[in-house]
């Protein structure tokens, strides 16, 4: 049986075209316990006849440093093969990203355009948020079409990594480009953004190439077809006494229903479940999507939501999402809101800034403790329990907030973990401000996230 000797393997690889070359490479591909570094060194030394086949086998073993060495080697070849970077650059690595960024620093001064066209998609593949603007500059620059399309492909393969507002702006500009294939691709990418429908509608008055306009309409039509793409939503909310749903939640549901063109139901924990309108079954072949709009992993999330899901499953398939407070995007929004509050609460230079507070309904148990610790780490705020029934009582909260008397330090920035108006936000309105859904950041986020659901 043929034995694989790891040390001198690169030197023994048969030349391109030799009948034993592919079987040998296949054997290597299936063998564990070897590193790519030896092969990379042999390639750099010119000891291996390089072709797509050997790079394909190596690609599965490359780490960041090895991939970077190979790309540097490729960059310096007298006639570099344009197929190779895609094979060797599929490793996400900060140093590799930095090298690509350096090579592509300026569309005007980056050497041969065909070389840049090979590297632009790789920079997108690295998905470093700061590179979105660079890729957009290349896509919008007066460069050969192939280079601009390569830059747009870089934006495509990193789509969710770029700042979304800026990305939408770049894509809208590209959608009007005289290069119709570039413009068409931009429209297709706009159709993948969370607020796709709004983005495509916004292009309605803009003069587009005829084929691009047709494409826009096809994308829009697909987004507007509830039968194909939009499931019915069931928003489970806490609600107020007697099953009353606060107006901001009613408005949210109505707006979502308008945007998704699919039924959006509201169920308050304090009330009876709504009936299943015939439209839920008729409008969508997809399962009902249950969205628990709860902010904390309390008893409602652990016990009530599974029971509600079980109830609805009796009537048809249900897809259950995690509770809202666990969504990474929601936690990022909390952190951003808190940072903005802290910035506004400027303190005299001599005084240490007070720690911001997140007021929440009291929770018990290890899961709750872990979640609150995670929230504190995400937001930099301290989580403080405040009972809805006695929010201004004599508990921990009152000890953390100075009495409103002359000369006393300003209260720390506060944010109530309440999605919609409740007794906490009613009774401490002047201290904690409006509930989260009455704030633009959270309302927009929730609309965008829920609109984007299938």
């Amino acid at each position: 049986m043929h034995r694989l000797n790891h040390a001198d393997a690169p030197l023994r690889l048969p030349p391109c075209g030799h009948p034993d070359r592919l079987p040998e490479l296949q054997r290597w591909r299936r063998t564990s316990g070897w590193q790519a570094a030896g092969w990379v060194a042999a390639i750099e030394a010119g000891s291996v006849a390089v072709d797509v086949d050997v790079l394909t086998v190596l690609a599965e073993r490359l780490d960041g440093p090895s991939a970077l060495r190979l790309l540097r080697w490729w960059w310096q070849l007298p006639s570099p093969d344009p197929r190779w970077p895609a094979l060797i650059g599929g490793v996400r690595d900060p140093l590799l990203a930095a090298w690509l960024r350096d090579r592509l620093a300026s569309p005007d001064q980056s050497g041969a355009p065909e070389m840049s066209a090979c590297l632009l998609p790789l920079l997108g593949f690295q998905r470093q948020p700061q590179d979105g603007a660079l890729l957009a500059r290349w896509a919008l620059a007066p460069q050969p079409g192939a280079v601009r399309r390569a830059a747009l492909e870089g934006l495509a393969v990193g789509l969710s990594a770029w700042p979304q507002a800026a990305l939408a702006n770049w894509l809208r500009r590209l959608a009007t480009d005289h290069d119709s294939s570039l413009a068409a691709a931009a429209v297709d990418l706009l159709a993948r953004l969370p607020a796709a429908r709004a983005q495509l509608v916004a292009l309605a008055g803009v003069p587009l190439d005829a084929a691009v306009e047709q494409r826009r309409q096809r994308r829009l039509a697909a987004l507007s077809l509830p039968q194909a793409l939009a499931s019915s939503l069931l928003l489970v909310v806490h609600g107020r006494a007697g099953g009353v749903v606060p107006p901001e939640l009613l408005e949210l549901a109505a707006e979502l229903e308008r945007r998704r063109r699919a039924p959006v139901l509201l169920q308050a924990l304090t009330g009876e479940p709504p009936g299943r309108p015939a439209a839920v079954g008729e409008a969508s072949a997809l399962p009902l999507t249950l969205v628990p709009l709860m902010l904390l992993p309390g008893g409602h999330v652990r016990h009530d939501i599974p029971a509600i899901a079980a109830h609805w499953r009796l009537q048809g398939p249900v897809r259950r999402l995690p509770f809202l407070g666990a969504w990474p995007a929601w936690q990022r929004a909390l952190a951003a809101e808190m940072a903005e509050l802290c910035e506004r609460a400027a303190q005299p230079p001599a005084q240490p800034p007070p720690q911001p507070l997140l007021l929440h309904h009291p929770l018990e148990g290890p899961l709750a403790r872990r979640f609150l610790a995670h929230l504190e780490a995400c937001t930099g705020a301290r989580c403080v329990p405040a009972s809805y029934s006695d929010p201004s009582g004599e508990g921990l909260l009152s000890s953390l907030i100075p009495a409103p008397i002359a000369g006393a330090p300003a209260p720390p920035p506060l944010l109530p973990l309440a999605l919609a108006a409740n007794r906490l936000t009613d009774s401490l309105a002047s201290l904690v401000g409006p509930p989260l859904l009455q704030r633009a950041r959270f309302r927009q986020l929730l609309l965008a996230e829920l609109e984007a659901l299938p």
Partner: protein
Amino acid sequence: MTSVSVSSPPVLSKVEQAKADLCGLELAPRLEELGRQGWEALDEATLTIRLKWLGIFFRPVTPGRFMVRLRLPNGVISAEQLAVLADVIDRCGEHGSADLTTRQNIQLRGLLLEDMAPLMAALEGVGLTSRQSGHDNPRNVTGNPLAGIDPEEIVDTRPLVDAIQAALLGPAGPRNLPRKFNVAVGGAPDSFLLHNDLAFLPAHHNGALGFTVMVGGFFSAQRNELAIPLGLWLPAEQLPGFTLAVLRHYERSGNRQQRNKSRLMYLIDQLGVESYRQAVLSTWAELGGDPATAAAHDGSHLVTRAPRDGLGVQSQKQQGLHWAGLHVPMGRLDAEGMVELARLARIYGSGELRLTEAQNALIVNVPAERLEALLAEPLLQRFRPDPSPLQAEAVSCTGNAYCSFALIPTKGAAQAVLEELEQRVELPHAVRMHWTGCPNACGQPYMGQIGLMGAKARKDGEMVEAAKIFLGGSMDAEPKLAELHDKGVPLSDLPDVLEQLLVERFGARRRPMPA
């Protein structure tokens, strides 16, 4: 003190470890989140191995652009489903395309990770799935592409294929096979299926129509085998349960130490056919099956000839109805072509299409009075019902545009060579040519009357793209694998060499040279 020797469990390979750590099906609820988070959330094993349990393939040649392989049992697809798939690849612009595969299936190319959650929902919405269509899973179950409409039909394979898929994807189905596994059901005299790990061929036993069981067929870079008789006959209703038993036994007993020796035939070699049969029957009994319904059988069957191409307008067994078999060059579709195919199926037929293993598409249930209008549709200039005898049954793997193992651009090279040959020769009958880019043999070169495999060869002192030539593959009553004829003809010389072969061996006549 007594020392106890404990044998340590074998070290798992990278692939086996990845499968043992997490089943790819567990990723389904996370697809939307993964789309938002992108690569950051994916380790290498998830990206390159586990996602294939959902039918999602990371493609090293197009990093960031994924492929999705569906499951289309028996190659049946509706116009509505095809239109949804067309929209999916239309969104991918110049990166989007679809391939008809040699398993009567469709692969979508050029998708972003962000597309996956909405795609899976859209697939589910129209009754499609891509579940377990890649890697170590039971692949798309094939059947007679003319099932239910075939005047020569022995048995309608559609309900059997559907039931087998339901059994394999159901709660008792396998989730961690040692390797991929192909299953097929024959229903006509031309149902050649011996390239499958498990094939059911129609056969009689004591006057009853059922199926004889064939096992172990596969092609690979190392070994090529046609399936052999297991020595069992089964009534149709037992096929799903028996298939599940075969797969569960393979899951438990297949070779997980050497991936290049893990296909079913190696297990049969190891156990011997008799012992293997007994082991499968025992597993079937354990799963609640009834081995008493199986009978010993000599493996004779009712498949007697090579597959028909199914092209052109042909009469169905239903009075007054026809199917129109359209040749899709190299099985490659774009969004526009798919939209049009769907439209034609809806307007002229019953809204149903069939896909063949020769990578072609059939529009079915077309009434006689609509045929003329159908044949006048512009799409039929592109997807012809009457392609040349060389084009009709040409099969190709994807080639180096999407696969880094392919040594040549298979589809493009094949199309160019075939068009050149059409200019040069006339053929009295179709010649089945199978093109594949590398020894992994995805284009099944050993099944072609002429098989071509990507290679490199030296020409004028330089290494150039080339093809090995195989000859003599037969799928008729005496099946035979093609054998190596030439180990490397440069692509530029291929038209000359193939022209000579067609004249000498396949009755081709040279066309007069233009003056």
